[in-house]
C-alpha cells in the first residue's frame, strides 16, 4: 500500500495535469448546496461540504440517458434501424466522492453487472470512472453509514482515498487505477506507510465516534418476507407519504429506470429515465390493471426492497449506505432509520 502526501499548494497544479487525461467531476457549490458537476479547466472542487444534495450516481447513470437513435424516413437506407449513439467513455474521475457514495456504486453494480446480463451503458461509464474518495471527517446527524455496512473512511469502491490533514492531503492508493491517477497528477511525495496509516486510523476513529445515529439490521435476514409484508405498521409508516420520487432520486442506490421513445417528425430517440417505485405508473400494466395501486403498497415496496428483498437476494447487507439523503429531503419526514428498526424488531 502506497501513501502519497499532497501539499495543498500543489493541489491546483495536480488537477490541471489531471485534466489532460481525465474528465474531472467534483463537488461544486451552487446556491446553498453542493452538487457533483463537471469541473472546468482550472476549476477546483469545493471540499468544504458535508454531503452533496443529490448523490453522484448521475455521473455514471444520468437521470435521462440516450440509448439509440433511428430514422423513420423511408427514403433513407437505414430507416427503422436502431443505431447506437456515440458517447464519451473516455476516462473520468470523481474527485472528492464520499466513501458512502462510492460504496453505493458497488451496490448498484450487482444490478447492472450480473453473470447473465451486463448493462452496457452503466458498465462502460462505470469502468471509465476513477473514484478518488474524500474521507469524511464531519458526518451529519442523519448519517448512519457505520451501521449500514459502510463508514466515513470506508475504502470499498474507491481507487484512492484522500484524507484532509490540514496543510496536506494524504492519498491512500488502493488500486492500480488510483496509482495511475496520482502519477498523472504529478504528486510524488511518498510518505511513510506506518505513520500515514496511524494518522488515518486516528482520524477514522474520531470520525466514527461522531456518528450518532444507527440502524439495527441483524434480524432482517431471519424474518419471513411474507410476515414483514403483512406487518401492521405499514399504514402508519405510509400515512404521511405523498408518493413523490424525492427519496428514490436522491438515493445513491436506487437504480430503477423506464425506457421511452420520443419521435420528432421522422427522427426518433430511445432513452431511459430514472423511474421511481413511488409512482403509480411504475407498475401499471398495459391492461390498465395496477397491482401496486395504493401508496401503502408502494411505500412498503421501497422499504422491503432495500431492507429485505435485497438482503435475501445478495446476502451482503442492506441496499443502503446510510448517507441520510432520503431522511433530509423527504418532504414529510419519513425516516428510513425508524422503518428499518421497526422491521428489524418486528415479531409477529
Amino acid at each position, binding site marked *: 500500500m502506497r501513501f502519497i502526501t499532497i501539499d495543498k499548494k500543489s493541489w491546483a497544479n495536480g488537477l490541471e495535469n489531471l485534466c489532460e487525461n481525465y474528465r474531472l467531476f467534483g463537488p461544486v457549490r451552487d446556491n446553498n448546496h453542493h452538487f457533483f458537476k463537471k469541473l472546468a479547466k482550472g476549476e477546483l472542487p469545493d471540499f468544504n461540504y458535508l454531503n452533496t444534495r443529490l448523490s453522484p450516481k448521475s455521473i455514471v447513470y444520468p*437521470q*435521462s*440517458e*440516450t440509448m439509440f437513435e433511428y430514422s423513420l424516413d423511408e427514403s433513407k437506407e437505414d430507416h427503422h434501424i436502431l443505431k447506437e449513439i456515440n458517447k464519451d467513455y473516455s476516462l473520468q474521475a470523481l474527485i472528492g466522492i464520499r466513501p458512502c457514495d462510492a460504496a453505493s456504486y458497488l451496490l448498484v453494480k450487482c444490478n447492472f453487472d450480473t453473470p447473465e446480463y451486463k448493462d452496457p451503458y452503466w458498465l462502460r461509464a462505470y469502468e471509465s470512472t476513477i473514484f478518488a474518495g474524500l474521507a469524511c471527517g464531519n458526518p451529519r446527524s442523519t448519517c448512519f453509514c457505520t451501521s449500514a455496512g459502510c463508514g466515513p473512511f470506508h475504502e470499498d469502491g474507491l481507487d484512492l482515498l484522500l484524507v484532509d490533514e490540514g496543510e496536506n492531503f494524504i492519498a491512500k492508493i488502493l488500486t492500480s487505477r488510483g496509482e495511475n491517477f496520482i502519477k498523472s497528477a504529478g504528486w510524488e511525495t511518498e510518505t511513510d506507510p506506518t505513520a500515514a496509516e496511524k494518522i488515518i486510523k486516528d482520524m477514522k476513529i474520531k470520525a466514527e465516534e461522531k456518528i450518532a445515529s444507527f440502524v439495527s439490521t441483524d434480524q432482517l435476514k431471519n424474518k419471513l418476507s411474507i410476515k414483514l409484508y403483512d406487518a401492521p405498521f405499514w399504514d402508519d409508516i405510509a400515512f404521511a407519504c405523498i408518493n413523490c420520487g424525492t427519496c428514490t432520486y436522491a438515493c445513491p442506490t436506487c437504480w430503477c429506470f423506464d425506457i421511452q421513445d*420520443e419521435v*420528432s417528425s421522422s*427522427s426518433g430517440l430511445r*432513452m431511459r429515465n430514472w423511474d421511481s417505485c413511488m409512482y403509480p405508473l411504475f407498475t401499471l400494466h398495459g391492461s390498465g390493471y395496477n397491482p401496486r395501486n395504493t401508496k401503502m403498497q408502494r411505500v412498503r415496496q421501497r422499504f422491503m426492497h432495500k431492507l429485505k428483498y435485497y438482503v435475501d437476494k445478495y446476502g451482503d447487507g442492506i441496499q443502503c449506505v446510510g448517507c441520510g439523503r432520503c431522511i433530509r429531503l423527504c418532504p414529510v419526514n419519513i425516516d428510513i432509520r425508524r422503518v428499518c428498526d421497526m422491521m428489524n424488531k418486528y415479531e409477529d
Partner: protein
Amino acid sequence: MNEWKPRIVGFLCNWCSYGAADLAGVSRMQYPPNVRVIRIPCTGRMSPKFILAAFMKGADGVWISGCHPGDCHYMEGNYYARRKFALFKNLIEYMGIEPGRLHFSWISSAESTKFASVVNEVTSAVKALGPREHFIKTMPRVA
C-alpha cells in the same frame, strides 16, 4: 433565399369561425395562407394542452376563435373558455412567450370580412415577431 413564412395553428369553433372561413372562401376573399386550421366543437373544448402542444411542436403562433358571447351553440361554452383563455394567455406571457404569439377572437359564421381581417392581423403580428425560438421540443436535450 426563401422568405420565412410563419406557421400558425388556428383552432376554430365548428359553429361560427369555421363557417366564417368557409364563407370567406366562397366569397373569394383574399387573406394570408399561413393558418393551419383545426376544427373544434366549441371553444369550451379547448384544453390548455392543445395550445402548449402547438407551441411545443413549433407553431409560431396560435389563434383560437369562437362564437360571440351569448351565441354559443352549447349556451355557455365560450363563457367558460373566456376565463380559461384570460388566465392562460397571462400565464404563458408571464413565462416568456412574446405577446402577439397567442390570439383570440369571436367571429360569427356570417362575419367573413372579420375572419379575413383577423387572419391578416394575426399573421402580420406573428410575422413581425419572426420565428419562435423558445419552447420548441424536437429531440430531448438530455445526456
